C-alpha cells in the first residue's frame, strides 16, 4: 500500500514536471539540438588518430599558419560539414517518405532507394573510369538521382498494389538486396585500382568527400531544405490523409510529385558522396517526434535536419575513433543505433493496435 502511494506521488510529480517541460519543450529542444550540433562538430575536429588538444583545434581552425591547419580543416572539417549536411538530408528524406507513404518505418535505405542510387552510380562510375574519365560531382548526383528514382518507381508500383505497411517495407528491403548484389557483382568484375575506393564508398563513409564536393553538396541540400520547409503547410494537410488534403485546397498530384522529387534528390545526394547510410532516415524522425511530441512539419522539418546532422556526427565520431587507426563503415555504426529504434517503433505500434 505504502509503496503504491509513494509511486503515485512520484508519478504525479513527474506529470507535473512533464507539464512544465511541455511549455518549454520547443525552445529547449532546439537549444539542445544546436548545442549538440556544435559540440559534436567540434569534438570531431579535436578527436582523431593524430592527437590534437582543444586549443590546437581552435588554432588549426582559425589560423591559416597553424601547424594543425591541414589536419583540422583539410582532414577533419572537410568531413564534418558533409556529415552535418548529408545527415540532415537523410533524416529529412526519411521524414518526407514517412509522410508520403503514411508509414512510420519508411526511409530511403529501408525502401531500397539508397541501394538503387548506389547501383546506377557505380555502373556510371565504372563506365566512366573504363574510358579514363573521372566523373564530376554533378554527374554523380545525376546518376544517383536516376537510380533513386528507378527504385522509387518500383516501390510506388508496389504501394499501389499492396496497401499493407509491412509488405511495402519487405518489398523495399528486397529491392535493396537485389541492387546491392548487382552492385557487388559490378564492382568485383571491374578491375581497376580506383575500384578499391569504390568498394569503401559502397559501404558508406564520409571519408572520400573533397572540398569541391562540399560546395556541391551545400548547393543541393540547402535549397532542398528551404523548399521542403516552405512545403510545411501542404505536408501538414497531407498528414490527415489524401482526401482531406485535397478538400483543404492542396493540389494532391503536384504535391505528391514534389515529395517524391525532394526525398529523391536528398537521398541521391547522400548516396552520391557518402554511399548508402542505413537507418538514419527512419530513426531520426522518430527521435524528433519523441523529443518535440508533435508531428507538425513546421517543427519537424528543421528538427529532423538538425537531428540527422547530430546523429551522423556522433556516428562518424564513433566510426573514426572506436577502433582507430582502423575505421568502421558509417552504416555499421548508424545501424547499431538506428535499428533498435525501428524495432521499438514497430513494437509500440503493435501494442497500440496499429496496422
Amino acid at each position, binding site marked *: 500500500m505504502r509503496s503504491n502511494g509513494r509511486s503515485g506521488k512520484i508519478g504525479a510529480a513527474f506529470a507535473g514536471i512533464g507539464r512544465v517541460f511541455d511549455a518549454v519543450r520547443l525552445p529547449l529542444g532546439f537549444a539542445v539540438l544546436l548545442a549538440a550540433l556544435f559540440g559534436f562538430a567540434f569534438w570531431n575536429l579535436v578527436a582523431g588518430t593524430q592527437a590534437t588538444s582543444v586549443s590546437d583545434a581552435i588554432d588549426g581552425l582559425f589560423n591559416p599558419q597553424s601547424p594543425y591547419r591541414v589536419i583540422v580543416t583539410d582532414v577533419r572539417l572537410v568531413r564534418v560539414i558533409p556529415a552535418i549536411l548529408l545527415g540532415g538530408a537523410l533524416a529529412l528524406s526519411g521524414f518526407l517518405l514517412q509522410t508520403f507513404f*503514411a508509414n512510420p518505418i519508411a526511409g530511403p535505405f529501408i525502401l531500397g532507394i539508397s541501394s538503387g542510387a548506389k547501383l546506377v552510380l557505380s555502373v556510371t562510375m565504372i563506365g566512366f573510369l573504363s574510358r579514363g574519365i573521372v566523373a564530376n560531382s554533378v554527374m554523380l548526383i545525376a546518376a544517383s538521382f536516376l537510380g533513386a528514382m528507378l527504385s522509387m518507381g518500383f516501390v510506388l508500383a508496389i504501394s499501389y498494389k499492396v496497401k499493407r505497411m509491412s509488405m511495402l517495407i519487405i518489398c523495399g528491403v528486397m529491392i535493396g538486396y537485389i541492387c546491392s548484389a548487382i552492385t557487388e557483382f559490378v564492382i568485383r568484375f571491374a578491375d581497376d585500382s580506383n575500384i578499391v575506393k569504390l568498394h569503401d564508398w559502397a559501404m558508406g563513409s564520409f571519408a572520400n568527400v573533397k572540398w569541391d564536393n562540399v560546395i556541391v553538396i551545400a548547393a543541393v541540400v540547402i535549397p532542398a531544405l528551404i523548399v521542403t520547409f*516552405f512545403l*510545411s*503547410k501542404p505536408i*501538414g*494537410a497531407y*498528414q*490527415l*490523409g489524401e*482526401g*482531406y488534403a*485535397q*478538400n*483543404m*485546397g*492542396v*493540389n494532391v498530384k503536384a504535391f505528391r510529385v514534389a515529395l517524391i522529387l525532394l526525398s529523391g534528390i536528398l537521398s541521391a545526394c547522400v548516396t552520391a558522396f557518402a554511399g548508402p547510410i542505413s537507418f538514419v532516415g527512419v530513426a531520426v524522425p522518430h527521435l524528433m*517526434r519523441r523529443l518535440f*511530441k*508533435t*508531428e*507538425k512539419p*513546421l517543427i519537424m522539418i528543421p528538427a529532423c535536419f538538425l537531428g540527422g546532422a547530430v546523429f551522423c556526427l556522433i556516428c562518424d565520431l564513433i566510426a573514426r575513433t572506436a577502433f582507430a587507426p582502423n575505421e568502421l563503415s558509417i552504416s555499421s555504426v548508424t545501424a547499431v543505433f538506428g535499428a533498435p529504434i525501428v524495432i521499438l517503433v514497430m513494437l509500440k505500434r503493435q501494442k*497500440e493496435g496499429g496496422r
Partner: protein
Amino acid sequence: MNGTYYISAEKMTVGYDGRPLIENVSIGVRRGEILTLIGPNGSGKSTILKSMIRQLKLIAGTVVLDGRDMAALKEREIAKKLAIVMTERIRGELMTCRDVVETGRYPYTGRLGILTKEDKAVVAEALETVHASDFADRPYNAISDGQRQRILLARAIAQEPEVIVLDEPTSFLDVKHKLELLDILKTMVRERNVAVIVSLHELDLAEKISDRVVCVADGRIDRCDVPENVFRDDYIASLYGIRTGRFNALFGSPELPAVEGEPQVFLICGGGSGVPVCRALQRAGVPFAAGILPESDLDYPVAQALSAELYAIPAFSTASEAGTETVRARMLEIGRVISTVPTFGETNASNRVLFEAAKAAGILISAEEFLRGSDA
C-alpha cells in the same frame, strides 16, 4: 429552380476507372437545406458524394458549385466553399483535437500555415459548436469514435464552408451520439444557412432530419423527393429489396418477418400496450392472432407486421356486434388469450366483450406465463 441550388450535379455519370456505376445523376441542394442520400449497401451513395467533391473523376456531366462549373475552380476556391467529413480515418498521430480542427483553417492561412488570432477564435467557436471544448486539448487518438466524429465535423465547420458533405457520419456511433451529431447539423443549417449533403444508413434519422431525400438503387437515382413521399412502407421495402419482414414507416424502422402458422394465442391489445408483447411473441417464434384494432391504433403497425392473423377495423371506428362475435368465436377456438389492455372505454367496447368472454372461459393468461410455458 436550378438557379437556387448552391451545389448541384447535372446529368452526372459516376463510377470507377471509367466504368459507369450510376448514370444521369441530377441532384442539388439549396442553402439552409439538408439533402440525404439513402439506399442499399453498395448502391453508390459514396461514389456520388466522392464525385461531387472531386475525389473521383466524373465520367460525364458537370457539378456546379455556387453557379460555376467545379472543374474550372481552383482547389483553394473550392476549399473555402465546401468542407467534407468522409469515412476515411485520419491519421491523427501526436495531434490534439484542436490541431485537427485547426487544419480546417488551411485555405485561409498564409504560406506557412500559421494561424492568426482570428483563426484561433474560429477554431474555438467550431469546437464550441460541436460541444468539444472540454476535450479539445486531448490527443486525437485517445478519444472515442463519437468524439472523433464531432471533431471532424468541427474541422469542417472551421473551414467556414457554404456546403458540408458528409459520408455516413453516424455509422459507428451509438444512439446518443447519432442524435447529437445530427442535432448539430440541424443547428448549423438553421443558424449559418449552410447546405448539407449527407448519406445515412439509418432511415429513421434520415426521415427526421432531411428536407429532401435521394434514393439510390440499381445504378440510378430512384427517387428524389420530400421525406413524406419516400418513407412509405411499400416504397422503402422495394428500394431495399426487403422480402422478409417489412418496413414500418410510422416508426421509421424495419420489422422482422411475422411468424406464420396456426395462431397459438390471441392478443387483445390497443393504445401501444401490445407492442412489447408482439415483439416478445415474434422473438419466441410463436404465431399469434391480434385484435380488435382500429387502423389508427398505435399497436396497429407492429401487430400488422408481426401477427399471423389480424382483426382490424377502419381508423377511428368501432367494431360491429356481428364482427365482434366472429372474433370472439375465433378467440375461443384458439384457446388462449393474453390481454394487455389496461382499461376499456367507449371506443374499445368490443375488446371488453372479448376480455369478459376469455375470463369467463378461464383461458386468460398473462404474457409472462404464456412465454414461460412456450419455452418449456
